[in-house]
């Protein structure tokens, strides 16, 4: 049999969570799934992560919310969302119909809010896991992001762990000195997996009008520009923790995804790429398959973490 005719096995385990393939959608870039349903057979995704949810609906920031930068996108949506209750009532029923793992991305302004959101979602039917965004500011601790201190990150992890039995992925912020330290901290606190990276904090200026392009002044940078940073952080974290690592940041094509897998990510999330091409997740999935075939790798597990040192 020629290697290219083999159907490689693509399934991966993220702790307690089994996925049919490693290609997931990144939170905030795929809406609640329905927006992309005309383009993507949602049943072919490894997992679908929805826009971040908070306890109460949030209006978000005034426009402009977007700025384009070289190979990058700055956004300051301000975590606009319909709130966890409306999500369960209005969005989850549609998503439940799919056989794909549905993962809710959540955040809070206090540790307790994280717990409450997790509790509500833990009781809802149809979710496979939670992804906990700790890049947002802790209003009680002067607006410092939860994800910027190992202690605060652990506190959130413990609170969510108490609130639900759902598999729990902690999504780490890259705006820190030592991301592997944060990863270790959430691992000890009970996280089932970590995903990284969220956006890098950035800014753009309108030189003609001498004002920030974004109403919010600063925003989060995503897209190809951040891929080298994301890869480096995933590499650092896989070398320090034993829980699975999900890699993301600037994955636009199959090659980008393969870089993350080779470095040791168990799965990848595709974000900004979907804006450029609504079929991006499927192209990436197919490209990974082709690579495995061409390299006679029958199980994706035999590719993950195989980076050679020079």
């Amino acid at each position, binding site marked *: 049999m020629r290697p290219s005719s083999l159907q490689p096995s693509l399934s991966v385990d993220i702790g307690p969570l089994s996925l049919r393939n490693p290609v997931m959608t990144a939170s*905030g*870039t*795929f*809406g609640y799934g329905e*927006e*992309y349903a*005309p*383009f993507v057979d949602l049943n072919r995704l490894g997992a679908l992560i929805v*826009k971040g949810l908070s306890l109460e609906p949030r*209006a*978000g*920031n*005034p*426009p*402009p*919310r*977007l*700025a*384009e930068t*070289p*190979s*990058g*996108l700055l*956004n300051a*949506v301000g975590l*606009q969302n319909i709130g966890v209750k409306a999500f369960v009532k209005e969005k989850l029923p549609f998503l439940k119909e799919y056989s794909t793992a549905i993962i809710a991305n959540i955040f809070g302004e206090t540790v307790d809010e994280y717990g409450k959101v997790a509790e509500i979602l833990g009781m809802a039917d149809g979710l496979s896991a939670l992804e906990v965004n700790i890049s947002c500011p802790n209003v009680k601790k002067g607006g410092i992001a939860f994800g910027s201190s190992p202690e605060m990150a652990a506190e959130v992890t413990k609170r969510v762990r108490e609130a639900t039995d759902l598999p729990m992925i902690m999504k780490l912020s890259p705006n820190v000195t030592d991301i592997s330290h944060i990863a270790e901290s959430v691992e000890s606190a009970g996280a089932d997996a970590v995903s990284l990276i969220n956006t890098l904090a950035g800014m753009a200026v309108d030189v003609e009008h001498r004002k920030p392009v974004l109403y919010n002044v600063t925003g989060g940078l995503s*897209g*190809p520009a951040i891929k080298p940073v994301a890869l480096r952080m995933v590499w650092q974290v896989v070398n320090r923790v034993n829980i699975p690592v999900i890699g993301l940041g600037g994955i*636009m094509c199959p090659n980008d995804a393969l870089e993350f897998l080779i470095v040791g990510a168990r799965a990848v999330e595709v974000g*900004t790429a*979907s*804006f*450029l*091409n*609504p*079929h991006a997740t499927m192209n990436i999935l197919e490209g990974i398959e082709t690579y495995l075939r061409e390299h006679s790798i029958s199980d994706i597990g035999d590719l993950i973490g195989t980076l050679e040192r020079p």
Partner: protein
Amino acid sequence: MHPVPLFIKGRILDNLEAVRGHFLLRLKLPPAFHHPVPGQFVMIRVTESQTPLLARPMSIYAFEKGAGHSVLEIFYRVAGAGTRILSGLKPGDELSLLGPLGNGFSGNQEARRAILIAGGIGISPLTFLAASLSPIREPFPVEMTAYVGAQRKEALAGLDRLSAVCPDIRICTDDGSMGYGGRVTELFERELDAFDPQGCAVYACGPRAMMKRLAELLEKHPLPCQVSVEERMACGLGACLGCAVAVRTPGGDVAFMRACKDGPVFDIRRIDW
């Protein structure tokens, strides 16, 4: 229901400078592309390239469904890096296209008269609207009046096409180099009371300042008015929440709607200018 959008490739038929800095792009599309509603738009990107990163939203200027293919027209102004690259493309080159997107203008079945108010490149969606209104309900065609404004004569673009479907065009230039000397909203204000609000509808597209002024003029006036707004967009599909438009909620608060999905056409009175 609106037509389901597609992500497809289009081949350039021509891409010609019509008026200084304004280009008419004609694209050949596969027949699968759905017939758009006036006011809908597409997201355009130069195939394969990641520079610029994002697709560019462009209103549909004209659309014709043929047997084996359709022809879509875009009328655009070179405004920055992305449109500059677009303006350099040649017949035969390929583009990626996502669309048709957005809600489009909603035709008022009762309306006998349409007033179009266009500032600058805002003429594009209104021309498509006018073209689709003009043959409607013969032998009682919709009467149309268009107010078209620009900074100066040389920046007036797209008049030929519009005048073919709307004989009553009232031109305004800020510097008075052609037509009425002053803003398009000034002339409209002067003539506003001549229109019978009954069976009459206003459709507008132009710079924010123009639409804001229009909102003020119509605040206490019964004329219905739909405006097409512009916002920076990433996905065009309602997923990223990047294209927020501030609207007033029934409760009096401000909420954000998506220009790409809930718009780009809004009732002028809903928007929090």
